[in-house]
């Protein structure tokens, strides 16, 4: 009987399933993708021939181990691939697969919903040829493609350097790597970063490799606009030396990651403001348990920590689920997981300091910039909703959304949410926390209008 549900078969979900299966349970494991792996260890489609080393680089062994672990689990779990969980109610998941709706009952649910890029819109960012950093990585790893002939990489964070390196290594032309974080900031963070020795070393390796291969690198630069008439032609930036144009036909941009928390929100998990994340995160304790009985969170879908942390957190949450079910616990293993998670946490703090989210860049976004790309609403329209001469100045993001339509499009605020909050808070001259967060509403992703129980009409 399957009464534990794991949403997300990435690193967190896979290791959680492993712990539960060893304890004799048969969890339901649900993922939107055709197979396990999540994003970083996304399995390529059939017929792809690149080696794990080529695809996953330094993480090849971990990727292979994760895939092998899930393959071993397959007979012992109820795996639901290609399946979206679009809503969650007490003890019921609501699913959609190829147009068919379904329900999965649960006693405990572990949400391992992963993350997406955090973006700062700039003029021209909706042009063909502009993707998120994560998107450019998926194009390469999962589809064997570079997003352009000459790709500029823009943003900050470890992913910026990793993807630029992966592109150059794969034979793409990297026009430039532009890190909005100054070198000095990263240098200051270096002693703390040394805690994560292997990860830090890898980061240095990517940067060194790019320099050695003469990829233009600019740090502490300010992006101004992506230029082009109907397609990307150049990225205009400003450095200490003044403005310059980087000729390119594609730009991959991103400033760290942010958790996909929509299901946690619908499960009524309370959120708390995290100043380091500059956003609201769902509340959970060190074991992954939330204040909602039966709801657990692990991995990047709860808080950005990376794949290694996700594996540990997934396993740890599974033990918390076993404890909730009064099943035997391996206290030594639990202690090992707790210690490992604590070690990683310190590195994470250092990483956030080394690659800070440039809120000032979001706040300085020109009025004409498209802030909500789904509905094509500009930053200026957001500011207008908050100014004293507005109808009634919107004091928080949900009211601003109601008045401007920002966040009402297909992505329901996934992209525009963080920069919209920054702009609103800056316009109101109030703390970021006080403008709140967009209320989650089902479905977490679009679902088709259809006759329930019938096949979609042809």
């Amino acid at each position, binding site marked *: 009987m399957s009464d534990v549900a794991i949403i997300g078969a990435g690193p967190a979900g896979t290791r959680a399933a492993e712990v539960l299966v060893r304890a004799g349970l048969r969890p339901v494991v649900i993922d*939107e*993708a*055709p197979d396990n792996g999540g*994003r970083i260890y996304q399995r*390529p*489609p*059939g*017929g*792809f*021939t*690149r080696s794990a080393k*080529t695809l996953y680089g330094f993480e090849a062994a971990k990727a292979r181990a994760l895939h092998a672990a899930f393959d071993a689990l397959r007979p012992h779990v109820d795996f639901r691939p290609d399946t979206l969980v679009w809503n969650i109610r007490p003890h019921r998941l609501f699913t959609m697969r190829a*147009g068919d709706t379904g329900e999965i009952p649960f006693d405990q649910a572990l949400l391992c919903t992963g993350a*997406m*890029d955090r973006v700062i819109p700039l003029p021209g960012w*909706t*042009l*063909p*040829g*502009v*993707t*998120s950093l*994560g*998107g*450019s990585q*998926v*194009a*390469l790893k*999962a*589809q*064997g*493609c*570079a*997003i*352009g*002939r000459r790709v500029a990489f823009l943003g900050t964070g470890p992913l910026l350097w990793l993807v630029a390196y992966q592109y150059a290594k*794969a*034979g*793409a032309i990297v026009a430039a790597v532009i890190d909005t974080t100054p070198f000095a900031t990263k240098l200051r963070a270096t002693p703390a970063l040394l805690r994560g020795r292997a990860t830090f070393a890898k980061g240095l390796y990517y940067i060194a490799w790019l320099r050695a291969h003469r990829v233009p690198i600019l740090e502490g630069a300010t992006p101004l606009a992506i230029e082009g008439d*109907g*397609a*990307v032609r150049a990225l205009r930036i400003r450095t200490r030396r003044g403005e310059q144009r980087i000729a390119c*036909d*594609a730009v991959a941009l991103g400033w760290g990651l942010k958790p*996909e928390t929509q299901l946690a929100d619908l499960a009524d998990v309370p959120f708390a403001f995290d100043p380091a994340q500059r956003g609201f995160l769902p509340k959970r304790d060190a074991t992954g348990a939330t204040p909602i009985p039966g709801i657990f969170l692990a991995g990047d879908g709860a808080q950005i920590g990376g794949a290694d942390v996700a594996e540990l957190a997934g396993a740890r949450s599974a033990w918390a689920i076993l404890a909730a079910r009064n099943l035997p616990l391996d206290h030594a293993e639990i202690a090992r997981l707790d210690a490992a998670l604590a070690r990683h946490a310190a590195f994470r703090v250092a990483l956030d300091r080394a690659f800070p989210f440039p809120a000032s860049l979001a706040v300085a976004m020109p009025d004409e910039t*498209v802030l909500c*790309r*789904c*509905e*094509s609403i500009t930053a200026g329209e957001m500011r207008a909703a908050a100014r004293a001469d507005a109808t009634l100045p919107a004091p928080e993001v949900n009211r601003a959304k109601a008045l401007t339509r920002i966040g009402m*499009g*297909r*992505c329901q605020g*996934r*992209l525009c949410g963080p920069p919209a909050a920054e702009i609103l808070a800056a316009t109101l001259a109030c703390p970021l926390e006080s403008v709140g967060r967009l209320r989650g509403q089902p479905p977490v*992703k*679009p679902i*088709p209008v259809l006759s329930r129980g019938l096949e*979609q009409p*042809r």
Partner: protein
Amino acid sequence: MRLQRLAETARPAIAFTLDGQPATALAGDTLLTAILANADHVRRSEFDGGNRAGFCWMGACQDCWVNVEGAGRQRACTTYLQPDMRIVRP
């Protein structure tokens, strides 16, 4: 085309149509890859008229929805190309 195939090019070709015109891509391509290997955009914004070519490639941004005859609305980045699919860009 902007999109560059750097690897995995030895896959079987798949024929499909894009806006009524014959096109080819490779087995294992998503609709997003297949479309961008043949054209420079996947849709136009209803509100600013600008061309869009997806953004996140991972089913989050919802900016790549296209129409597939007989299968309705499909998110291009998370849907795999099937032989003889008839894709119509909105």
